[in-house]
């Protein structure tokens, strides 16, 4: 490898790029976005007619049930947008890779996405421990890290991680909503906590304690990977807890239910949004109990939180849109699920961000666009995002609901709040939104 041969390579590369650009210019651009002018290869991962987005999900391994459906939903929504012409006449290429929910593998696949596939931005990388492992790398490389699929508070830290944005309501405000509801509706309940032993459980507990610290009689944690939660559930029972708040993932919701069933323990259950999908928990229950428990009937009457319309709300116009996207999708297999709807929502938000970044987006421009316009993004979510130059926090509101069969009934209106004990919970005055006619958002580019 001599200097001259390298120079030759560079020269050739430059010549290729120039001729490619010239060819594009010569061909003329039919559509042309709002700004007029030509589409350019304005940054890594962007060409005149494509834009490349990447993500990591657990497609194999223990976390795969449910979560592996999220990218199929996102993929279908991107296809829906591409079929309608894409964003600024660019087709969205969505590449997602399997990390098996193992941070070591997350690092490798994100390396591959950024260095090999040369993505423009990340979207919806899933999991707290997994995504945490690539935070420094993505921010060091200057790759926009949009809409991490986890409610950890880590993603809202623009000073340290200027490229990373949260998306869903964080676990702390979810804890506040749950604590507030319990304080108002179950003031005499003896509350037990069943928490995952990481940020998920800790942030949730921090939110809860501002409202019901004196009602908590027992706190039990579980470690993902250890499938025996009998001792924890027994300890909650022994402490006399008659209401159990559970910040657990779906498989541990099911394991906790089975343990309680064995012990004859019947508290009022209160599940965080993450662990409450009745369909998935039902199938896990059937699986774990080897058929002894056949559906989600154990979850009947449990209370949970919601922030986007779910698949059972078939008269909701957003759910109708997602159903339409799913039915028209060429890669769709199986039924529309809440996880697929989640993926579609994230894809919808990403399309809004790309629109806001303008005709020829740069990575820094995309981040600036989400900071400026993101607070006004309209979608199926019940409450707005908290994006600004100082904040990268996701959806600000939820509603409390009760699970009945495979559907749920709402118990409160949409409530909004923010992090910190001194921010009160208020009723949201936002009107429910309806999707645009063509199902594709239309966000003006920011200046």
């Amino acid at each position, binding site marked *: *490898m001599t*200097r001259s041969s*390298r120079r030759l390579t560079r020269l050739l590369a430059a010549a290729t790029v120039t001729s490619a650009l010239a060819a594009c210019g010569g061909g003329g651009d039919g559509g042309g976005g709002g700004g007029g002018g030509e589409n350019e290869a304005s940054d890594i991962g962007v060409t005149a007619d494509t834009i490349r987005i990447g993500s990591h999900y657990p*497609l*194999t391994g223990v976390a795969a049930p449910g979560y*592996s459906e999220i*990218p*199929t939903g996102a*993929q279908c929504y991107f296809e829906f947008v591409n079929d309608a012409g894409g964003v600024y006449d660019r087709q969205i290429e969505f*590449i*997602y*890779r*399997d990390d098996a*929910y*193992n*941070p*070591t593998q997350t*690092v*490798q696949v994100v*390396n*591959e996405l950024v*260095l*090999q596939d040369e993505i423009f931005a990340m979207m919806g990388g899933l999991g*707290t*421990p997994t995504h*945490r*492992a690539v935070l*420094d*790398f993505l921010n*060091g490389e200057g790759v926009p890290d949009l809409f991490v699929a986890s409610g950890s508070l880590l993603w809202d830290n623009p000073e340290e991680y200027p490229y990373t944005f949260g998306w869903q309501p964080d676990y702390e405000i979810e804890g506040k909503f749950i604590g507030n509801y319990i304080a108002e509706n179950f003031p005499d309940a003896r509350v037990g906590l069943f928490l995952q*032993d*990481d*940020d998920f459980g800790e942030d949730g507990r921090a939110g809860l304690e501002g409202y019901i610290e004196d009602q908590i009689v027992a706190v039990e944690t579980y*470690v*993902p*990977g250890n499938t025996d939660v009998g001792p924890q559930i027994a300890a909650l029972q022994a402490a006399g807890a008659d209401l159990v708040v559970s910040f657990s993932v779906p498989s541990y919701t099911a394991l906790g239910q089975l343990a309680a069933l064995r012990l004859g323990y019947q508290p009022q259950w209160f599940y965080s949004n993450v662990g409450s999908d009745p369909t998935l928990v039902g199938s896990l229950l059937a699986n774990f109990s080897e058929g002894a428990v056949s559906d989600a009937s154990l979850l009947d009457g449990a209370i949970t939180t919601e922030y986007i319309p779910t698949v059972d709300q078939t008269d909701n116009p957003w759910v109708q849109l997602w159903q339409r996207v799913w039915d028209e999708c060429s*890669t769709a297999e199986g039924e529309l699920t809440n996880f697929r709807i989640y993926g579609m929502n994230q894809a919808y938000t990403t399309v809004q961000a790309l629109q806001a970044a303008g005709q020829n987006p740069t990575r820094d421009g995309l981040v600036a666009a989400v900071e400026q316009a993101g607070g006004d993004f309209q979608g199926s979510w019940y409450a707005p995002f908290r994006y600004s130059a100082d904040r990268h926090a996701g959806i600000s509101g939820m509603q409390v609901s009760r699970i009945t069969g495979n559907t749920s009934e709402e118990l409160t209106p949409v409530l909004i709040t923010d992090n910190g004990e001194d921010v009160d919970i208020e009723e949201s005055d936002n009107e429910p939104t309806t999707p645009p006619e063509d199902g594709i958002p239309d966000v003006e580019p920011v200046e």
Partner: protein
Amino acid sequence: MSQPQEKTAASAGEMTSESPVEATTAANAPSGPASARRSLLPGNTLLRHLVILAVCAVGAVALLELTSPFRNSQFAVLAYYAIAAGGLTVLTGLNGQISLGHGALMAVGAYTTALLLGAEEPLPLAVVFLAAVGITLLLGAVVGVAAARLHGPYLAGATLALAVGLPGLALYYDDVLGGEQGLRVQSPRAPEWFQGFIGFVSGNNATTTKWLAYVGVICLLLTFFLLANLARSRVGRTWRAVRDEEVAAELAGIDLGAWRVLAFVVSAACAGLAGAVLGVVIRLAAPSGFTIVLSIALLTAIVIGGLGSLLGALLGSALLVFLPPFVTNLGADLGLNNTEAAQLAPFIYGVVLIIVMIAAPAGFVGTIRLRWLQARGKRAARTAQG
């Protein structure tokens, strides 16, 4: 052969009855001068290894500078797998002990690195790595003392307990060790001289990714150099003697236990270094990175490559690193969706493992060596006849 001798062989279990002959062929490389063939390499073992080391170092620089940044990051991953597999292949191939606990030993190295680099004023990287090796070495000595008394499946069971139990400590002491989410590793940036060096060699960007790949490869070459010398020395010969025939070894005055402990300690030190490299490359030390799957992956790597051979450990590790993404991309190109393509990778890896076990039970390197020995034997027989 007398009656009691056969009984001992049988009671030691089927696992050992035949295995040293074929499965560890790769470990029994002839010493340079002993094989009377002409060679360009010097006859002195140390000198020969130094020449090979220099050639490999030049080759590694060329390889890292000619490949893309992503390939560089894959070589960094390959480096820590190969360091750990190299240590394990010495333990299993040369000394006949099995370990399912090497993933846990790597965790010790990674956590040590994370804690030391997380300090206010971190020590130089080399010192941190040496500390990681030292601490893992101490743990290896403790485990080795227990391991020296155990055989085959019992040893596998004991080390399996280590693999399952040790990551639990990170959860128990979560205020120091970060619990389930682990500790972030403050990977050092590329120093000035490195940027100068890369600028001189190729003019590429001296990124952190590249620096970490060099760190990994340097550690790999040094480890393999030391292990190769050890394997060709009196120590290596003694290990082989312990592996092949305990009674004979003991009659020759070899203290079986002490030599087994030594093998475990050397192997643990390699695992510690591998863990340290993993820490800086992955930038995270978390229990979910050191599950039993890692230990078993290392074992499959050395079995596929050829027990006892460092080259085999390298090849097996390369398969671990390069095969899954290759299969996934191939699957995607063939029209599978990403989920199906991702599920294809472990399947193909399993198929490769089964094929190797059926077609080449001595692993890549062992099988080639067997063929070569057979061919030479035939040639020699023909010459003798003619």
